[in-house]
């Protein structure tokens, strides 16, 4: 039995959290934010889904993508660093500048690196979160009675 307010919070907040994550990701080059924090924020959104909908549907939705995400993230990050060698050195930032509707936009390998970090963080953190739920589900089935299970879900 999952509380109604959690389900409401899930529907209302999850999109907001994801948008915040995108903003954090984009401003991360010069201001606080970046791939690591954005990744944790996305993981927080998924954790909210775990709390609101239970672990099983979330695992069915994301479970098989998590490990490939870690691999892809590592690959993206190291590729961004290796791309720099094209302009003289490992990790050398390569920037592309262009303007859309008068706004100047800079895209570069540091953002690619951040993207990789974000993917790794999402993959790892959500894996941990799902494993932790698994462990607590098992334990509550083994040891606790129904009433304590309710308390755990509330917490």
């Amino acid at each position, binding site marked *: 039995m999952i509380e109604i307010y959690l389900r409401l919070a899930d529907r209302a907040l999850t999109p907001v959290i994801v948008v915040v994550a995108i903003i954090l990701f984009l401003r991360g080059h010069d201001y606080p934010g970046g791939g690591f924090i954005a990744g944790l924020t996305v993981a927080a959104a998924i954790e909210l889904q775990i709390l609101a909908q239970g672990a099983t549907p979330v695992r069915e939705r994301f479970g098989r993508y998590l490990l490939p995400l870690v*691999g892809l993230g590592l*690959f993206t990050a190291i*590729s961004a660093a290796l791309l720099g060698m094209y302009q003289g050195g490992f990790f050398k930032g390569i920037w592309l500048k262009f303007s859309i509707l008068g706004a100047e936009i800079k895209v570069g390998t540091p953002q690619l690196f951040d993207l990789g970090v974000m993917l790794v963080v999402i993959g790892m953190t959500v894996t941990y979160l799902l494993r932790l739920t698994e462990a607590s589900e098992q334990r509550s089935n083994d040891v606790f009675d129904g009433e304590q299970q309710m308390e755990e879900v509330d917490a």
Partner: protein
Amino acid sequence: MNPYTALLPLPVAVPLLFAAIAIMVGVSRRPRAIQIQKILSGSALVINLVIGLLILSYTLTGERIVFQMGLWPAPYGITVFADALTGIMLTVVGLLTLLLLPYAIASLDKSRARLGYYPMALLLLMGANGAFITGDLFNLYVFYEVLLMSSFVLLALGGTPSQINGAIRYVVLNLMGSIMLLLAAGITYGTVGTLNMAQISERMGMAPYALQALIAGLLFVAFAGKAAAFPLFFWLPSSYHTPHPVVTALFSGVLTKVGMYSLFRTFPLFFPDLLVAWQPFIMTIAALTMFVGVLGAFAQPTIRRLLSFHIISQIGYMLMGLGVALTPGPFGVGFGLAMAILFLVHNQLVKTALLVGGGQIELEMGTGKLSELGGLVTSRPLLAVVFFLAAFSLAGFPPTSGFVGKLGLLQVTFSTGQYAVAAVSVVVSLLTTMSMIRLWQYIFWGKPNPQLKPRPRLAYTSTRALMLTPAIVLVALSLAIGIFAEPALTVTGTAASQAIDRAGYIEAVNPEPAPTPAPAVVQEVTP
């Protein structure tokens, strides 16, 4: 730009790139996926060894390679750095990981391979390589974390209760060491206003003695803990015997030795005065480490438990080398350090050979209990010979590398007047010999136990040959170092003279003089 400069980041980049691809491949459930992982792993290890050899061959001419990450100048960007000491470590660790690949292919069970042994071993290599080449104290901490995480996964791989037990002890005690390292990095930054190793080296002498001693103490505790020195060794014997033997062999060649390398790198660079002033302290720790380690080995009932106590005991000899690092000798100023480096390399080769051989017996017979084994000399004569040579190299008999290493260390220690420690090291050598004879006798001598039948999966000649190859190569190398001792000593002598040449290091990295003065905290602490 010097082409070697472009090579320098690759020992980190190549294993990471191939590990990332291997993780993505490993998602597939088909058996082909593991085959592809093996091929990826093999290519990464070969490329890594070639790069290591190239870096070594260049640095042995007395040159240093410096690269600034992202081309940001020194104190702002992260510096990566290689001299001959780095080159030696990159090459030896690259060689060990490559040699352990056929062993893993022959002996690893499918479930452990599926859980990701191959990518994780590559990430472990990446962490070790990163710790070797980094020229930045915080970056060093980061690579220690990479090492810790990947080794934690490798330890727990398979998930038997004893493994989880060992892995948790391992990770908790090593995290404490990491916290010490982080504290040291933080206090260093607060004291000298930089984390670039060249700049730390420039400015550390100006810091008040109390802070210097605090940083040196924290770094010593952190690195000596990682290297499993007395009294911080207890994580090692409680975890090393639990995972698959290939993991133990990998750890013994890489993990503790990275801690030792960091001591060799940072102490002559940051605290050349303290290294002399603290000699009695370091020597005491060294003597206690070797003595307690070898005594512990006598009480152990299984092959790998016994050998893990010998890892600790041998770390004591390397610490002895650190204690006399700056003592001059026939091969240059840093003769003590040169001997310590030689001993480190010798130990990586021989210890891995022993663990590979011992692990093979454990895997084939299904037990590592000394009381149950026996009489294997008739059925496995080649393994018996290789194991015998490795054991006597560990004990320090001529013509092996152990003899050269121990003799040299003993000479330097005598010339510094540390007679007590020299005496302890001789006694420990004797005890090591006894322990090794005891081990060999239990495994290979006597009557075969009729109840022990070799496991059919590992009984193929080809499998056995694959598993025996690394031990043969490693023992051959140990003999080569022992017989061609002079060229080997010239190599480590170059490495040592570069490692203790602070001015050369600073000049090579060439950090910009940053305008920030040391923060006010320094003055408050000064009495």
